[in-house]
């Protein structure tokens, strides 16, 4: 269905090709998972399938890409639109119309299908993806998961035989991600659509894949194989696989279901053991408090009567559906957004009343789009401005950055950094002023496992140094790894607030894989289990 014949892609100005000598074949009706580090060329690979590379992005493509018998060299994306449907990373940026129904019809209009066919297919697509209730809604008013499903439906309605998705679940809460993956699963099984998807969160998708393609980056050869084969040796793997390797299970389980069947002996072994927890500083004084907070946009309350207090050295995770009010709460804590009702104190002062520089020294937020904060044309300049803003010793920001991301060059343009590097840069800019309260909004969106691990280490160290950290996230594995406390928001209200293990193990939606495998015991990460096994061995 898709054939790459010795394909190399070089972007203008780059000294080496992004993809080098890729030859592979993807047969019809398979669900193929593409993994690789950020910046390894995954997106380039996906975009080459429908000819966006190089027709739209520029650069040179050597070799041939043949899709359903058509060569992309002679067929620009628009001539392949009837065969390949592409769902980009951020669906909102690619919506052409305002309303769900129109969006579903747009691709068919371009293909010139007759009006009665369009009517019929719009109805079919609405049913297939469970969008019937949303048909007249404005796209802007949809939640993240709904948007993603509309974006899939919009390309699907034109009946392409190949569906290409770039990180379809990275911005979604666990529930919405499951919805989207279930829809994809149905397409592959019921309609024989070929699906190629890139995803960092292997734990969500690996059990659905027929094939895994690893793009190692830096021009190294691409690897292709079955998920079980690839996972046995892959340097990065979801927790379920890592636990399987640790416990020596054969065959290696890829899903929680398989792992749970194999986990009986491990559970018995762990009876009586307790997970080792990070020591939280004794200091009970809260550094940030929110008392009876209500935030309204117009007449609608985004948050209502929320109470929260955060102590120094504590890591608090805010979880909840897309649109539950997590971002609003973080924004209120730095004093942006609509005027809140209720009381917010950061180190005893109202953040709204603090002038810019004083704010920087008491609370810092790394927003969902970190690149919003970047404006200089080199890293060095960006760091210098940050030092000036924070009124700290020149070189402070640069030193922090060298510690967190030593590979970043001074002369690089911030836009040329990978997503993860950009996040670390912004984190350093915010940290230059050493705010006692650090807030992060969806920090792991689009990050690969190694970068995520590095971020988790950095945040753990910061918490150890006495920073209070609040992060809003959908990433249950990160929360299991990092958070001391979890607060779950739903429709603007706090519905749960407590110790991480207690909150996440009691809810299937927010439980990490290890907790699902080993419940009812309260284990959250592979690391905890490994520690416990070591101590059992020492004792016995």
């Amino acid at each position, binding site marked *: 269905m898709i054939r790459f014949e010795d394909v190399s892609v070089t972007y203008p100005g780059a000294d080496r090709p992004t993809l080098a000598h890729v030859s592979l074949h993807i047969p019809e009706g398979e669900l193929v998972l593409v993994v690789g580090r950020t910046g390894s060329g995954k997106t380039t690979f996906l975009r080459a399938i*429908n000819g*966006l590379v190089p*027709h*739209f992005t520029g650069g040179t493509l050597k070799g041939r890409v043949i899709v359903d018998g058509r060569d992309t060299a002679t067929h620009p*994306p*628009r001539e*392949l*639109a009837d065969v390949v*449907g592409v769902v*980009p990373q951020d669906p909102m*940026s*690619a*919506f*052409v*119309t*305002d309303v769900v*129904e*129109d969006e579903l*019809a*747009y691709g068919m*209009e*371009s*293909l*010139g299908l007759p*009006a009665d066919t*369009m009517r019929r297919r*719009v109805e079919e697509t609405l049913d297939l993806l469970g969008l019937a209730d949303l048909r*007249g809604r*404005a796209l*802007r*008013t*949809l*939640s*993240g998961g709904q948007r993603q499903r509309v974006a899939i439906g*919009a390309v699907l309605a034109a009946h392409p035989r190949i569906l290409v998705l770039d990180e379809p679940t990275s911005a979604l809460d666990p529930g919405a991600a499951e919805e989207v993956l279930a829809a994809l699963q149905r397409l592959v099984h019921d309609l024989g659509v070929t699906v190629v998807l890139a995803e960092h969160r292997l734990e969500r998708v690996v059990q659905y894949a027929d094939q895994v393609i690893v793009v190692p980056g830096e021009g190294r050869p691409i690897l292709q194989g079955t998920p079980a084969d690839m996972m046995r040796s892959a340097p990065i793997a979801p927790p379920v696989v890592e636990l399987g390797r640790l416990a020596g299970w054969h065959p290696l389980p890829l899903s929680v279901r398989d792992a749970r069947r194999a986990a009986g002996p491990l559970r018995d072994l762990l009876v009586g053991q307790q997970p080792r927890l990070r020591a939280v500083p004794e200091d009970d004084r809260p550094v940030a408090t929110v008392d009876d907070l209500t935030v309204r*946009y*117009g007449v609608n309350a*985004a948050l209502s009567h929320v109470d929260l207090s955060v102590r120094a050295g504590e890591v608090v995770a805010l979880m909840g559906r*897309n*649109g*539950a009010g997590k971002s*609003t709460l973080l924004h209120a804590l*730095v004093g*942006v*957004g609509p005027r809140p009702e209720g009381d917010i104190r950061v180190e005893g002062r109202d953040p709204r009343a603090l002038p*810019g*520089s004083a*704010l*920087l020294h008491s609370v*810092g*937020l790394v*927003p969902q*789009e970190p690149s*919003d*904060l*970047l*404006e200089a044309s080199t890293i060095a300049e960006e760091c210098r401005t940050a030092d000036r*803003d*924070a009124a700290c010793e020149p070189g402070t920001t640069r030193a922090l950055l060298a510690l967190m991301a030593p590979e970043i060059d001074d002369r690089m343009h911030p836009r040329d950094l990978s997503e993860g590097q950009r996040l670390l840069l912004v984190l350093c800019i*915010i940290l230059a002023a050493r705010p006692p309260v650090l807030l992060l909004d969806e920090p792991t969106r689009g990050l690969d496992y190694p970068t995520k691990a590095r971020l988790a280490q950095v945040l753990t160290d910061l918490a150890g140094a006495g920073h209070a950290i609040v992060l809003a996230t959908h990433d249950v594995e990160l929360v299991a790894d990092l958070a001391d406390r979890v607060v779950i928001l739903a429709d603007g209200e706090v519905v749960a607030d407590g110790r991480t293990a207690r909150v996440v193990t009691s809810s299937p939606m927010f439980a990490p894989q290890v907790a699902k495998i080993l419940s009812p015991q309260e284990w959250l990460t592979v690391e905890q289990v490994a520690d416990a096994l070591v101590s059992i061995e020492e004792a016995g």
Partner: protein
Amino acid sequence: MPDARWLHPGAWWVWALGMAAAASRTTNPLLLLLLIAVAAIVVQARRPEEPWGRSFGFFVRLGIIVIVVRVAIQLLFGAAVGTTRLVDLPGVTLPVWMAGVRLGGDVMLEALLMALYDGLRLATILICIGAANSLASPTRLLKSVPAALYELGVSVVVALTFAPQLVSDIDRLRTARRLRGRRTTGLRAIGSAAIPVLEGALERSVTLAAAMDSRGYGRRGPLSASQRRTTSALLLGGLVAAAIGMFALVGSGSPAVLGLPLLLLGAAAAIGALVLAGRTRVRTRYRPDPWSLPEWCVAGSGVAVVAAFTIGSLVDPVGMQTPFDPPTWPGLPLPALAGMAIALLPAVAAPPLPQPASAPAHVREEVAA
């Protein structure tokens, strides 16, 4: 009361461009201010509650900046015009071999008025464009962009979505400045935020164009190569002729007699090319935006206002070009006033907007986004 629906965005653009063309034909400050008022009233009446609906305010601010810059340039570098001295300032006149440019110098009332009228005219044109950006849904307009000439179509997509993206971005950037501990108001704030805002908005417009491309926008129909060449030549030639005609029409220096035929000829050629390309039916419509009575009224009122201003400058040239040397109180030419009364029509002739289906979710999403 007509049913609530979206007016065809093309109608809003015809109306707004008519207003802008009318503004370009006059320097009468009263007429220009009235044009701005008309635009503001119509925008107030029919502006949707969307992020790009705020474009009007953004363009008004841009207009004010234009006036300030125009006046400042006149005071700093402008040639000495008039005799009424307002303020004594020291100045230098550069020697003849440096073109005899004058720097600084006394502030003359006449020069000030000239710059003010000129700046106001440019600002009014900008504000009329802003009104179109506020009123016409950019996404609905995108659906109507003809795909006959692919490259041109993509440029139009990028151009059309750029201003709305820009306006939606400004709030985000203000938040970002606050997070870096900067001031969020003042000239320096605007200056340093400008680059990321422009970059971001352009990037998003290009992303959108890429998405449209991969969904089949601009696919070739079963046209033969020679047919395609004829169509492209006709369309390009037509657009160039129309542009020259438009330029002659709005440039106050050149006679309208030359511009109008060229504009009409060019428009006819371009429409002919589109019809020719459209005959092969590469594209179909799911639910086409209707073009009915309200659209005719709105577009017609735009044509009427430019016609009225053109007639006005024929019968009453002094009323339309208010003399600044010596300073004269501006008059109010009757044809122009009548034209503007017609231009107000869209405030009631355009159908009211449909209510958003679900307010609570949208509000929360805006926060999340």
